[in-house]
């Protein structure tokens, strides 16, 4: 039987086992809903703005209605204006929620009554319109010609000359995308890579490994397991990404920056690269344990590395252009988490992207070879858990210390 067929059989079994697992499907649905929600919520929030309802108390305030309406239209502030006869009725409506604010300009100073607070842009709108009305009134009383008044009260246009190109605007959506991508990849890589260690440990401690090794070489068994579990993880993530893209299309796709939308499919690549690297480490770790309970401690280096990568994602958000962020994203264990975060925050030089991917592939290949050796030498060892250093020394380490031979 060819090695490829053997690897394929093991991978098929692993994939089938996970597809039958209810927790796998629950997590798939939860992840898909989460991504779909993240892509939808900004658009929904933007699509349903609530206008600020302002009550104009008395004829003086109602006289400002045309100016308020035109200023609101000019500045894009969404207001709705209502005429009211007296202040008591206006206050009652403010308290009842029918009005957001009541404007009364009969007194010495204009008075705006609100239930709790008023949005700053609405305050600015009212302040500007009232100030201009007062100024027009005073200047007219002083016999200033209307065209002069208009000229005086028309804001001057300001021309800004930038000496360097402005930095790309950092939207909240990009920050959220960077952090969510980091968490999502961390979760997916940890869950599926540690799943490899758990599966290997189960086969070792249940002695299924001995029956398997009578039929298949250990390196093929390991690769098949990594591929099968990885296919399940990739499928789960692909469903989540598809849900995100479909949700974005359904809401028109205008609320989320384009870079964030294009980041979604690339998560599959980063998962694949990151998972493969850590899955091989995890397979070796799983073969080293003596009991299932030891899987967590044996795989601690994986969770530590990925958690450190997630910490670096917060550095990416705060200083996306710093040298240390770039350097961190080029370190193979950090790349799968940090590079997508950089891509979410803005463009990354193509050479850095290419270098990171090639480096990750190279490191994964080296790790896989080493893991295969550790896996083969540790899987049939009985007795206490094999330490990392002993496992890496492989056959050169005195096996008697860690082996309880059954002869």
């Amino acid at each position, binding site marked *: *039987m060819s090695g490829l067929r*053997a690897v394929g*059989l*093991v991978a098929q*079994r692993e994939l089938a*086992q996970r597809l039958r697992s209810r927790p796998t499907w629950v997590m798939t649905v939860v992840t898909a809903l989460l991504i779909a929600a993240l892509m939808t919520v900004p658009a929904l929030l933007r699509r349903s703005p609530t206008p600020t309802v302002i009550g104009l108390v008395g004829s003086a305030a109602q006289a400002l209605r045309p100016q308020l309406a035109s200023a609101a239209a000019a500045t894009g502030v969404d207001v709705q204006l209502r005429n009211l006869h007296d202040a008591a009725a206006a206050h009652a409506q403010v308290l009842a929620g029918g009005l957001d604010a009541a404007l009364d300009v009969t007194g010495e100073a204009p008075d705006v009554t609100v239930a709790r607070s008023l949005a700053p842009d609405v305050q600015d709108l009212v302040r500007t319109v009232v100030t201009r009305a007062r100024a027009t009134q005073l200047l007219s009383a002083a016999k200033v010609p209307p065209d002069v008044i208009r000229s005086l009260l028309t804001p001057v246009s300001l021309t800004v000359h930038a000496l360097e190109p402005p930095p790309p605007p950092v939207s909240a959506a990009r920050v959220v995308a960077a952090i969510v991508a980091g968490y999502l990849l961390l979760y997916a890589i940890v869950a599926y890579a540690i799943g490899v260690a758990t599966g290997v440990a189960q*086969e070792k401690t*249940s*002695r*299924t*490994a*001995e*029956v*398997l*090794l*009578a*039929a*298949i*070489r250990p390196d093929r068994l390991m690769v098949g397991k990594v591929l099968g579990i990885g296919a399940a993880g990739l499928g789960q993530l692909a469903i989540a990404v598809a849900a995100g893209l479909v949700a974005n299309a359904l809401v028109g796709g205008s609320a989320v920056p384009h870079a964030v939308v294009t980041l979604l499919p690339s998560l599959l690549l980063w998962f694949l690269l990151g998972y493969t690297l850590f899955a091989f480490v995890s397979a070796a770790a799983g073969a080293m344990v003596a009991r299932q309970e030891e899987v967590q401690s044996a795989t601690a280096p994986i969770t530590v590395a990925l958690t450190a990568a997630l910490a670096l994602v917060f550095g990416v958000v705060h200083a996306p252009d710093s040298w240390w962020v770039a350097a961190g994203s080029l370190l193979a264990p950090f790349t799968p988490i940090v590079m997508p975060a950089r891509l979410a925050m803005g463009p990354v030089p193509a050479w850095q992207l290419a270098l990171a991917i090639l480096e990750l592939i190279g490191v994964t290949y080296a790790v896989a070879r080493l893991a295969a050796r550790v896996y083969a030498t540790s899987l*049939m060892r009985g007795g206490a858990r094999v330490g990392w250093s002993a496992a890496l020394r492989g056959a050169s380490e*005195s*096996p*008697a*210390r860690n*082996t309880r*031979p*059954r*002869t």
Partner: protein
Amino acid sequence: MPQGLEISGLAHGFGATVAVDGLDLSVAAGEIVGLVGRNGAGKTTTLRAVMGILEPREGRIRWHDREVGASDRLRFGYMPEERGLYPQMGVLEQVTYFGRLHGMERRDAQRSARSVLERLELGPRAEDKLVALSHGNQQRAQLAVALVHRPELLVLDEAFAGLDPSAVMLLSDVLRDEAQRPAAILFSSHQLDIVERLCDRVAVMEAGRLLATGTLEELQRRVPSRLRVRVGGGAAWRPDVPGARLVEDDARGTLLALEPGADPQAVLRSAMATGPVEHFGFERGGLTDVYRELVAA
């Protein structure tokens, strides 16, 4: 002799512990060979080396007159001492899976798995998960995994351990049928009565070495003759003959082991001098007796 498995100069150890030390053993197609010896004698290490699960430090393992390779081992069936299969996997699915791992096509593997499960009286439980089976039935499922691909060599470690009498009879019949096919069968066991009944040849291991190998008759010839003498008249008789060693003394008489050179006539004269000799005859000891003599030597 038909070709089959040939182990020569096999040696392996774990650190400073020598597990197997220069073992030579062969198993021909159609032959059932039993490997016996105390715990730590090197049986499991030998069987694992045959299956390629461990790489021996020295020695050669040949199959049909050439070095055994991975493709040969796909035609071997193996049941380890510490049984292990996937607990949450269906029995039929699991046996089929291992058949495919041994190179069978899906349909063949499935058909063969059903047939083997029927033969092992597990047909009605084929769709159950392994974990739902009793311990004895899990043993049968393990045997089905070893048999599903119709192996040319069957290697069973502690084949009969933990089996109830009906399962022992079933497994014995299966092994005889497999040998008729003809598969070469090498199995280890502590149950010497079963080994005696079932095996064409027996290999006795002690401290990593092969003490003796051969048919039961051949082994019997390698140990002292057993002579039973019963003296009547209530006389207490103890032989005082050089080379005659007392093995046991009960109502059936006195059982003696005669070392080479010991004179049976001298024993008879000694007995007759004590009282009337009611019984005087040589006995052939079973494998248990032979084993005891071999490891005591």
